């Protein structure tokens, strides 16, 4: 039993940190420190910098451009990006569709798509959820019918994140109506520019445009856009979702936000004193810091197990990471909003509305309420926290 990173891994951490410090565009960093999601340009620019360095696709095999890191190093890299804060490599490309193509795709698909994915020459989006298939994904209805050398797709996807940026979508379609729920589904790739595709924005409660509805009306894609076997798309989906082991723990991101919170709490006044002097505020932050430390150790346990066994089997800890990771992020976002006090009431962003000519609110206050509102989604998507509890009860507790 050795609970520490090796000296080499610590050295690697310093190398990553130094690289990010030197290479991350200042504007991107400033933007993200303010709590804003990076723009498309920022994401693409940064991922290309990483790609040039050979670090854009940490999870991929060396053959396809992966750096060949151990689980520990992948973790360190993720952490350092989140703490910088810097954009993470685009998840749809790197953690979702890429691994599916590597696992299930043809050689031609790999050669065609993977290098472009790594460089974000194509921006991908995910077409899984439908209006009637949320927590119950297997209830999906979007159809693909084989017609000669083509698939003809009809139906609707929803909650499609950043579809407005996307060049391609990977989607689950029902290809056999007679089969039982989880059977008869196929995993298909589709260019977003095809005739018959309509993207309609969904504005979320804080006013942001992150998600979309995507409609398919007799959209025709070539037959070779099927990944894996026909009617076996559920295997791809399960594989993809199973890769989401650490994604929502986001320990580094939460640590970065807690730092930010503490800085704000030194500036914000409460009762005529810095808010950080309020014992109850401090207690609330500290409760989260403790949970985060435990979560960090939980992540380490999963990584250490991965390094030993490489079985990659789902284990109960994955649900723990999801539940605790999202609770922590939601908790920090709520404390950030509360730290701003009345100044959290301002809607919008002074950078967008013109100069902050008076002192409408401190710059750090903008968007904090919006993030709190928006982050309620975290316990809903990616398998709601209720679904996670179902999984734990059934799969690990035997109930």
């Amino acid at each position, binding site marked *: 039993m050795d609970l520490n990173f090796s000296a080499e891994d610590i050295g690697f951490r310093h190398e990553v940190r130094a690289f990010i410090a030197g290479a991350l565009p200042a504007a991107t960093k400033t933007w993200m420190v303010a709590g804003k999601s990076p723009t498309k340009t920022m994401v693409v620019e940064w991922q290309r910098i990483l790609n040039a360095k050979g670090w854009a696709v940490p999870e991929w095999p060396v053959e396809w451009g992966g750096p060949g890191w151990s689980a520990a190093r992948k973790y360190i890299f993720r952490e350092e990006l989140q703490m910088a804060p810097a954009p993470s490599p685009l998840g749809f490309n790197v953690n979702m569709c890429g691994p599916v193509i590597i696992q299930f795709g043809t050689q031609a698909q790999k050669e065609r798509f993977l290098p472009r994915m790594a460089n974000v020459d194509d921006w991908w989006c995910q077409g899984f959820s439908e209006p009637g298939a949320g927590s119950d994904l297997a209830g999906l209805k979007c159809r693909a019918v084989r017609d000669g050398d083509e698939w003809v797709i009809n139906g609707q996807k929803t909650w499609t994140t950043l579809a407005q940026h996307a060049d391609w979508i990977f989607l689950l379609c029902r290809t056999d109506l007679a089969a039982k729920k989880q059977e008869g589904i196929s995993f298909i790739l589709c260019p977003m520019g095809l005739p018959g595709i309509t993207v309609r924005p969904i504005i979320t409660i804080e006013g942001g445009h992150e998600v979309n509805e995507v409609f398919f009306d007799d959209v025709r894609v070539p037959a070779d856009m099927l990944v894996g076997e026909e009617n076996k798309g559920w295997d791809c989906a399960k594989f993809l979702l199973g890769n989401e082991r650490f994604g929502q723990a986001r320990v580094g991101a939460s640590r970065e936000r807690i730092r930010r919170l503490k800085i704000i709490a030194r500036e914000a006044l409460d009762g005529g004193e810095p808010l950080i002097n309020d014992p109850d505020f401090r207690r609330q932050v500290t409760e989260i810091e403790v949970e985060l430390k435990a979560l960090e150790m939980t992540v380490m346990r999963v990584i250490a197990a991965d390094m030993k066994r490489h079985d990659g089997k789902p284990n109960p800890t994955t649900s723990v990471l999801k539940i605790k990771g999202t609770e922590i992020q939601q908790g920090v976002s709520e404390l950030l909003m509360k730290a701003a006090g009345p100044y959290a009431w301002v809607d*919008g962003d002074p950078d967008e509305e013109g100069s902050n000519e008076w002192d409408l609110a401190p710059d750090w206050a903008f968007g904090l309420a919006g993030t709190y509102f928006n982050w309620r989604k975290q316990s809903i998507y990616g398998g709601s926290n209720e679904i996670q509890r179902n999984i734990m009860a059934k799969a690990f507790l035997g109930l």
Partner: protein
Amino acid sequence: MDFDLTEDQSLLVDSVRRMLADQYGFEQRKTHMKSIEGWSTAMWSAYAEQGLLGLPFAEADGGFGGGLIDTCLIAEQMGRTLTLEPWFTTVVLGGGFLRRAAPELRAAMVPQVADGSLKLAFAQVERQSRYDLHDVATTARHEGAGWVVNGRKGMVLHGDSADRFFVTARHAGGPRDRGGIGVFLVDERHATVRGFRTVDGGRAAEVEFDQAPAVLIAEEGLPMVEAVVAEAIAALAFEAVGCMEMAHTMTLDYMKTRQQFGKPIGSFQALQHRAADMLVALEQARSMSFYAVQAAAETDADERRRGVAAVKVQVGRSGRLIGQQSIQLHGGIAMTMEYACGHYFKRLTMNDSLFGGADHHIRALADDGGLVQAA
């Protein structure tokens, strides 16, 4: 002891509820929000016709002689509908000061408030003040026969539509002294106003006073401010209960219709228990809103302060739970701007924060010795 409405109250509530049901559906609200004012001038007139603007003022002054409970009942309906008009700022806040002002001023202003031609706001928050009513840096001083006010107020609810501001300003004492704070009335023509949208879809403004001529309302004004804010907190408690009830009801309706795994999600016991916990929170908040009316009427200022702090804590906690859970139980749909539930959540969040959130008041109440005396 009787928690039922009187016949008059029932009539009033029913007519307001009917009016809002007819004219303030969620789609209509979107239209109102998109108007230049950010709210509906037509509805404002309708409120005037219904007597909602003159409600709490004495009949002798041109009002309708309603009590705090009547105001609160209307606030609950406003909460249920998420109305956008400056009713709370004009009638509850502004009206609170106006009711306590000199007879001549009341005589001059109440009829105009009641007929909708005069809108009021309360300019109190400052950059450093957070939730402390006595943290006032804006200054007032005698000039000639009158007073002038200098300073900057932030987060003035509906400050961009107000015709007059009630303003707290310091004429004596040091920062955060309880003495030396006056309440003044300033015409919007003497203020520079910058309006903006608030996160709940409402309006607020930053307001600057530069040698603004001001009418003195109360020279040692803090007790008056505290009394008005206590009433406002009671009204906010009812407003929050209105929001909670709607969020809860929408959630229940959705749970009964939304199908997942081949059955309505409302048939899943874990979600049922969550809905039951929301009901517990709602009932506790409703109970506390009744207490708020008692507490605001308390003549002992210490007792009143403890009472309204307790109200803010319970209503804030309940509103947070119901707001968050109503989103969670809906899932994605409630995360969208097009769906009403998220707006109740946002309003509940803002409502908690007004005049200090639950965290602020639990600390204040704890430092004040709590509600139970050790004997």
